[in-house]
Structures are given as structure tokens and as C-alpha cells.
């Protein structure tokens, strides 16, 4: 079966249309989600006419003043591949997913809780990964700074993407992310919730797992070295923990379900509710997985340097390059938790 799949993926890629500069789509964005059964598509072209072909329709329209528009394109539930071409040789495939079974949800409040034992694990990370040994006040500052940085990294991940608000208090509309000192051989865990039906969700982030995999194994975490300054290490760990918290909340909000029995099966996730390369191999042009550069990429396929927001393992970058949500995930988050909604 796997060989058959591989062969199919290769064939599809060979057959993939090329994108040409003569033809562009302005609306909607590529790999967006819509809840409606029809969608308007518009763009520009240097040709005289544009043709649209999909599983649901085939039509041609004239280009007027370099602009074209299909006003009522029917969409099937799930992924729609809309092949557009013009008579100047321009060709592209626009991907739109018609989502069902979810609706707009109230703003999501999130509580970050640092459980007993996490301070000790963070201290151990500082002691075990830095050549320069820190005294007790410096260790206390390390712990404080990592927690603050992780919170900032978490906020940054959702800023402008979804209406997610940090709070100190629990409540029916509060998702709690607990940081635990345990080593569970995983960085985090959350039950995936299609459409974020339950705002009172919970996630776990395992600081002890980071400690075990970091201390004594820095060679696997380039560009980290034991000669880093404490400030650089604080940033490293803050980035890693904040990213993990953002990843876990992503599951809690519903990303990215691969269960064929779920109302959210149109998400086409893989590797147990993650983004991985399988889906985009089948649909050349879609980009939902980037070896950890996207927040919802599967952990076992996420390079360690991506957790540190370092773009590569070839030494420190001038500037950190944090992971982001891919276009599809961003589209989903904006739909269920639109920013700018009434508080």
C-alpha cells in the first residue's frame, strides 16, 4: 500500500501545473478554509480569458482591464483543487477547503500554570547546559526569565491570528496549560477538540523531558553550546517551552484532526493530529508542513533547532526565526476565534 501511495504521489507531482506570472489570484488566499458552499474568486491576468476547472464546475470568463472574477464557485465539502488557466499559458491550482461542523467560538482565555517541580527542572537545565555555573540568585533569575519568555513566545504565536487571551484565573471558558516537572518522553499532550467545542480544555507541557534530552546531549541541539551566555539559554528554553505551549493549545482548539470519524476530518491532518508531509505530497502546491517551521508540525519530524527558533544548526542566527502557523491553520484559527471580536 505504501509503495502504491508513493507512486501516486510521484505521479501527481510530475503532473503538477506550473505557476506563471501572467495569472494571479487575489481572493481568496491559497489554502484557506471557508464555511460557505460557494465562493467568489478574483484575480488578475495579462491574457484575454481565464478558465476554471474543478470537480464541481468548469467555466471560462473574459479578462477585463487585466482583472477577472468568478462570483459563485461551488465547493464540495473538504479540499477543493481549483485549476485556473489563461490563454497566455498561465496555470495555477488554488486550494480551498470547505469546512463543516465548526462555528465561531468566543475568545479563548488561557491560563499558564507552572506546577511544582518545574523550577528545579529549569535550574537543572541551566546547570547542565552552561559551562558558566550560576549562583543561586542567578538561577532564580534564570527560572523567572524563562517563564516570562515562554509566556511571551506563546502570546506571539497567536497574536493577530486568533483571539487568545492570557488570564490568571480558571473558569469555564479558560484552557489551562500546565507545565510539569515530569519527564514523559514527550514534550506535550492535549486532547484534540474539533471546533474547540469545550473552551475549558487542558494541556500538559513536560519540562522534565526537555531537561533529560538537553543535559548531556547539547550536540543534538545545535546551535546551542555550553559556552552560550545565560541570557541566550533563557531565550532558548523560553522559545522551546512557549512553542510547545502554543502547539498544545493548537490541538485544544482543534488542529489538525486526522480522524475519519470526526466532523473535522476535512482538516486532513496526519501522524495523529499533526501536519506532516504525507498530505502535501499528494497535493503539490500546498504547504502545511515544514520540518518544524510550522507550529503544528509533528514533533518527531521537528528538527530540534526549530524548537529554539533558530533557523538552522550552523551557528546562531542574527535574529531568531520563530515557527508560525501555516496558512491553513491560520485560516482555521481566524475563523473560530476571530481577532477583533467583542471582548
Amino acid at each position, binding site marked *: *500500500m*505504501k509503495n502504491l501511495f*508513493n507512486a501516486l*504521489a*510521484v505521479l501527481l*507531482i*510530475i503532473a503538477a501545473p*506550473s*505557476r506563471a506570472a501572467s495569472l494571479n489570484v487575489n481572493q481568496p488566499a491559497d489554502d484557506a478554509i471557508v464555511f460557505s458552499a460557494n465562493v467568489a474568486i478574483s484575480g488578475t491576468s495579462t491574457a484575454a480569458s481565464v478558465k476554471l476547472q474543478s470537480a464541481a464546475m468548469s467555466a471560462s470568463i473574459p479578462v477585463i482591464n487585466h482583472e477577472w472574477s468568478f462570483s459563485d464557485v461551488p465547493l464540495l465539502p473538504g479540499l477543493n483543487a481549483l485549476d485556473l488557466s489563461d490563454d497566455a499559458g498561465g496555470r495555477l491550482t488554488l486550494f480551498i477547503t470547505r469546512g463543516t461542523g465548526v462555528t465561531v467560538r468566543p475568545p479563548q482565555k488561557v491560563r499558564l500554570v507552572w506546577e511544582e*517541580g518545574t523550577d528545579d527542572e529549569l535550574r537543572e537545565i541551566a546547570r547542565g547546559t552552561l559551562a558558566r555555573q550560576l549562583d543561586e540568585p542567578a538561577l532564580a533569575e534564570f527560572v523567572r526569565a524563562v517563564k516570562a519568555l515562554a509566556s511571551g513566545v506563546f502570546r506571539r504565536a497567536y497574536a493577530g491570528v486568533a483571539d487568545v487571551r492570557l488570564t490568571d484565573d480558571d473558569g469555564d471558558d479558560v484552557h489551562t496549560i500546565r507545565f*510539569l*516537572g*515530569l519527564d*514523559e*518522553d*514527550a*514534550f*506535550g*499532550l*492535549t*486532547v*484534540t*477538540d474539533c471546533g474547540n467545542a469545550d473552551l475549558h480544555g487542558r494541556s500538559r507541557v513536560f519540562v522534565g*523531558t526537555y531537561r533529560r*534530552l538537553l543535559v548531556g546531549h547539547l*550536540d*543534538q541541539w*545545535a546551535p546551542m553550546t555550553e559556552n552560550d551566555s545565560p541570557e541566550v539559554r533563557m531565550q532558548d528554553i523560553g522559545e522551546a517551552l512557549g512553542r*510547545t505551549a502554543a*502547539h*498544545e493549545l493548537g*490541538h485544544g482548539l482543534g488542529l489538525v*484532526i*486526522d*480522524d475519519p470519524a*470526526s466532523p473535522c476530518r476535512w482538516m486532513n491532518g496526519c501522524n*495523529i*493530529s*499533526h501536519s506532516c508531509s504525507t498530505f502535501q*505530497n499528494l497535493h*503539490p502546491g500546498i504547504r502545511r508542513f*515544514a*520540518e518544524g*517551521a*510550522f507550529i503544528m508540525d*509533528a*514533533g*518527531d*519530524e*521537528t*528538527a*530540534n*533547532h526549530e524548537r529554539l527558533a533558530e*533557523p*538552522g*544548526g*550552523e*551557528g546562531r542566527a542574527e535574529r531568531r*526565526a520563530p515557527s*508560525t502557523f501555516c496558512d491553513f491553520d491560520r485560516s482555521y484559527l481566524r475563523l473560530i476565534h476571530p481577532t477583533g471580536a467583542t471582548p
Partner: protein
Amino acid sequence: MKNAWSAVLFLVVAALTPAVAWPSDLPFGGKHLPQLVDSSNLVVVIKKADQLPGGSIEAALFEVTVDTVLKGRAPSKKLTVLVTLIERAVSIGDFSGAVAFLRGPMSEPALREWGIVASGDVYQVAAAGNGLIAMNPARLDAVESYIAAAEAPAGTNVKMKWAERQVKKPDDFLQTSAVFEIQRQKDKERALKALSTVVRSDASTLNARKLAVQVLASSPTTNATDVLQAAAENRRIPALIRRDAVAALSDRADGAAVLEKWKDSKDLLLSSEAEKLAGKKKE
């Protein structure tokens, strides 16, 4: 044969299947041999298993009978094993003849976290339940030799040799496990050569080739650029892998010049991909 093993590995019993997905954020390579061996202090071949009462909504308990110990010391022939229902539901059938990568005994706070009250020692299946691997003779040999390699003196390249053997096995799990091991190697030139072989070889699985390209993309050695370029230009390599190689080059500081050159290439794959990616910053 591979399909049969896969079917056994991924068999899920409905009675234990949770109604929701329980994804976990695993470490890089978390489901493959190098990471599984490192994460475990007890690795055993299981003869049989029986489900025990006392599980919770998040974890199931099993009594497993040990056939062979491959790493560590089993306190007795029968072990109490906890499987967190994170990644997949596990059935009794998954245990039979499988190799279990175990961690433990679990601490009291860890048991409490999963809602488990147990009187004796409890071991946990590593990698959020993924450390239960269906076996065949090739896999058993690979596990045994990897564990033995972990005790070899430093600088002997035993693990590298192990990886070079496994990439030739017709088993996607072993090939990808080998690539994860190659990624860890300090001898970057030898690793580069091995990765190049994986990418070029028709005997390599698609997953192993894709992973090798990913590892090459992150390699600090400048020669990695040459290997990626050669892979992208090689029309005998599947288009999927060539495309990945072009994308990997676009993420490398020294890849921009190569992409610029390809913009005028007669090879449609190279020219279209280069046009699309050149100058684009990594997201």
C-alpha cells in the same frame, strides 16, 4: 511481509479506542530506534500480555510476560506496564512478540498524573505508547546490535556502521531509524556520504529519502549543498525528492546562487521550483 507487519503494528482494538485523538509532541525521531533505545532503561521481547484493572481514562495497565531482556534488568518475568492512551490505543495483540521500550519504574507523581494507583513497580511504554514495535528477525537484529553499539568505546563509529547496514534493509522503519542515527553522527563527512547514498538509492524508501534531504538541509557542512544540488539535478530521483532538495537549498545560505542558476534551466522542475523559491525567505 512488510504490509503484514505494518498491519499488526497499527492494529487498534475498538474496545480501547478513545473517541478523541490524543496527540503528543514527541522529540525528533521519537518513534524510531535511536531515540527509543536512548529513552528506555528496559527493553524486552514480550511473550504475552493481559490487561489489568486499575487503568484510567488516560492510561491502560497490562501485565506482560517477558520472553527476552535486550537492555536493562527486568525485576521479574512479569511486569506491570502502563500505556498512555496518547498516540494510539494499544491492544493485547500489539504486545505479542513485540519489542517493548520501557521506562521505569514510574515515580509516584507520574502515576498520579495519569490517575493510576498501583502497589508495585510500573513501567511505562516509551514515546507515548509508540515504543511497542512489531518484530521480525531483521528488526530484532537491529535492536540488539544498536543496544550493543551503545556500549562501544567512543570514536569507534559502531553506530555509524550500524546505520550504514540498516539503510540497506527493505524496511522503512529500519531505514528511517538509520537516517535518524546518521543525523546524530559527529563525523559529518561520513554522514554526508551515507545521506547522499540514501537519497540516490532506488532501494531507499520515500520516507528515508525525504528524511535524508531534511537532515542534509540542516547539515553545517558546506558539502551538503553539493549533495542537495546533485540530488535535485538527478532525473532518476523521484520528483518529490528533487523538489524537496530544491526547497532545502533555498533555506541554505549558500543555496541562493544555485537557485539563481536554475531559473534558466531546461529542466522544467528546476526552473519552476527555482523561480518560485529564489529569494524567498524561510517562513
